[in-house]
């Protein structure tokens, strides 16, 4: 502590350190929100879909060259229209691509696969340094990132950064619309 007004500062800090107590209604209000989110996720079928996530379709090497365009087209839509919120229930195949010649492994994690929990990350295939993977993603607004070498989170350089990005890891925004099918 500074040597000025030491007593004043100590008294002030002592006062400010008094606990602020919230009643249990606060917990209930939070849990109402949390259960609503949980119900929405179940409604989208994400949890059920995750079980099949490891059986993703694998595309041949030539598909990687086209894939960058797929993600770019889908992602660029966020600049031109109001994002469509909420589940529509339709899953659209989306191909994710990352150019990373030095990587040993690349996976895709996002809110559509519970951020890779329980081995649900989408494992990309390496095509001479161009990593790609395709997976069905429900229509709506999503956040995702690439997980390089199993530990490094990398935002998609071809997509807009997600606005809600204060959780310590970079992520990108993805808009999947039925019209892009």
């Amino acid at each position, binding site marked *: 502590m500074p040597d000025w007004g030491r007593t004043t500062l100590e008294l002030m800090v002592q006062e400010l350190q008094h606990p*602020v107590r919230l009643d249990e209604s606060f917990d209930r209000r939070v849990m109402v929100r949390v259960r609503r989110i949980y119900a929405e996720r179940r409604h989208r079928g994400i949890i059920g879909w995750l079980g099949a996530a490891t059986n993703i379709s694998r595309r041949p090497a030539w598909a990687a060259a086209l894939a960058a365009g797929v993600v770019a087209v889908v992602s660029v839509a966020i600049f031109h229209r109001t994002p469509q919120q909420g589940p529509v229930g339709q899953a659209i195949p989306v191909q994710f691509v990352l150019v990373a010649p030095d990587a040993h492994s690349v996976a895709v994690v996002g809110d559509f696969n519970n*951020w890779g929990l329980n081995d649900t990350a989408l494992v990309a295939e390496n095509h001479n340094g161009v990593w790609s993977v395709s997976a069905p993603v429900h229509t709506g607004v999503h956040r995702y990132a690439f997980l390089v070498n199993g530990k490094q989170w990398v935002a998609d350089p071809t997509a807009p950064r997600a606005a809600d990005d204060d959780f310590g890891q970079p992520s990108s925004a993805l808009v999947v619309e039925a019209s892009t099918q």
Partner: protein
Amino acid sequence: MQGPTGMESSDAALVARVLHGEVNAYSALVSRYRDKYARYAVHMLGNREDAEEALQDAFTRAYRSLARCEDPERFGAWLFRILVNRCRTSGARRVRRGQTFVHDETALLNASEEHPAEQTMWREEIERALGELSADQREAFLLKYVEELGYDEMAEITGVGVSALKMRVMRACDRLRVLLREVHSA
């Protein structure tokens, strides 16, 4: 929260249960950090209503992104980082609305009953002085002295460099010295 063995569940254990679909386990984390972090939000935002809203939002955001919590054993620190960011947003919004910094009436009512009038005046002076600080200085001062974090922890939470944080704390102290001088000498 008591586990099967009677031991309190760790943050990591509770996070794992939530991530495996046991949504009600999250309420234990809410109860664990509710009051601890309410204090920071109330002092940072200056009123209980905004503080509760910010804290609710932080808990909700944390739940949405729980799978991205890299170290579930340090869930509390991760949640706090989200709350600090949320308070910044809320504070900025309040400034745009032109709202004045007001004291926490409930906290005043809960003040010591030994000398209620003096205690209330003292708390009012403290809250007024905090409100006079810039948001950056108030944040740094609260994290350093009220939450008793080290500068490295503060840097991790705020994303601000250690030297800049030290400067903010020093300036906050200088400002508080001026603002509270009359109270101190009275």
